[in-house]
């Protein structure tokens, strides 16, 4: 694996609750009242407008305006996939799955880049993030460019335990200078951010961590 890994906190219990609605959307027929309630909840979220410049919110509005219509009659495949992905982001991820490529660490995300080379040398990291395989894939969104993978809670605990000794060291590369030092500092920030996310995920039974490749 190369490039960047985005890691975010997900409410996996909420995902299981909305999963039947995602399946119903995928069938592109008329929606039942429970699925419409899920869409209404997403439409009321302040995060809905932030997805693709409000296009997601526009799609929700169109669907909710016509409960009598089958989705297959007036939407496209891309529309349906966008609604499914948007619902997962808005309803299941903390902070609407917000993240930034400029800031590697945020309240609900961490982008591992500078630290990735170091982490890839650690067996426990590779086992947690690479060896879950398709079994750890989130059921939705199942099409398109974005595919999330979720950690089991025991893996989150293992991650937290694995990070602890690394962060107890005074610095990841105390002797480095210039760019190498900057790189080491960012790597440490990422590792600290990841430890905070793991602690957050372990703070409630319903939470865990989801990850995906950015490049």
């Amino acid at each position: 694996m190369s490039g960047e890994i985005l890691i975010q906190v997900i409410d996996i219990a909420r995902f299981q609750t909305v999963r039947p609605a995602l399946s119903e959307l995928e069938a592109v027929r008329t929606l039942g009242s429970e699925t419409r309630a899920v869409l209404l909840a997403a439409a009321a979220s302040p995060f809905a407008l932030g997805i693709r410049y409000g296009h997601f919110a526009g799609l929700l509005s169109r669907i909710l305006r016509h409960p009598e219509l089958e989705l297959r009659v007036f939407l496209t495949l891309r529309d349906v996939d966008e609604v499914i992905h948007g619902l997962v982001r808005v309803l299941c991820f903390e902070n609407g799955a917000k993240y930034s490529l400029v800031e590697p660490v945020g309240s609900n995300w961490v982008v591992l880049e500078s630290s990735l080379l170091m982490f890839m040398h650690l067996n426990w990291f590779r086992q947690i993030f690479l060896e879950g395989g398709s079994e750890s894939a989130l059921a939705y969104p199942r099409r398109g460019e974005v595919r999330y993978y979720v950690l089991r809670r025991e893996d989150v605990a293992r991650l937290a335990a694995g990070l602890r000794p690394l962060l107890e060291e005074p610095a990841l590369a105390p002797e480095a200078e210039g760019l190498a030092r900057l790189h080491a500092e960012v790597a440490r920030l990422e590792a600290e951010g990841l430890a905070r996310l793991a602690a957050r995920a372990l703070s409630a039974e319903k939470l865990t961590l989801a990850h995906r490749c950015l490049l």
Partner: protein
Amino acid sequence: MPHTVDEKAEKRAERLEREAEDAIADGFRLEDGIRLAGEALATRQAFQGEGHRDLIWPLSLWIEALRWMHHADSALEAARLGERRLALRRVALAGAPDELACSVRELMDLYTFENDSLDPRRADELRCELAARADTGGAGQEV
């Protein structure tokens, strides 16, 4: 287990549509997507008739695959299929003028390829229809 011929055909069409969806969304199997959507369309035509609203979805899948190919020829074919889809939507969306306006707008988009109109006369006709719909309050914008 499906019992009647129609139930079997419906199951087959649904399976073909699902396979087409996966092939198109994959982005690397567009030819497969076109073939599968075409088979789904033919299956539905055979057991549901030429004017059934269920033909809209396989047409939409076919159009989407053609659009992803980014060729002038496939864009023109997508527009041709888009005409057929709009004809079906005019019936299916008769009670939803805002959605029908969206469909007209979608067809206008299909006639545009790399900022050029594939058929300026037809694009004008659609633009006029959209303006007329706006005058009568039936050109709902996506919000």
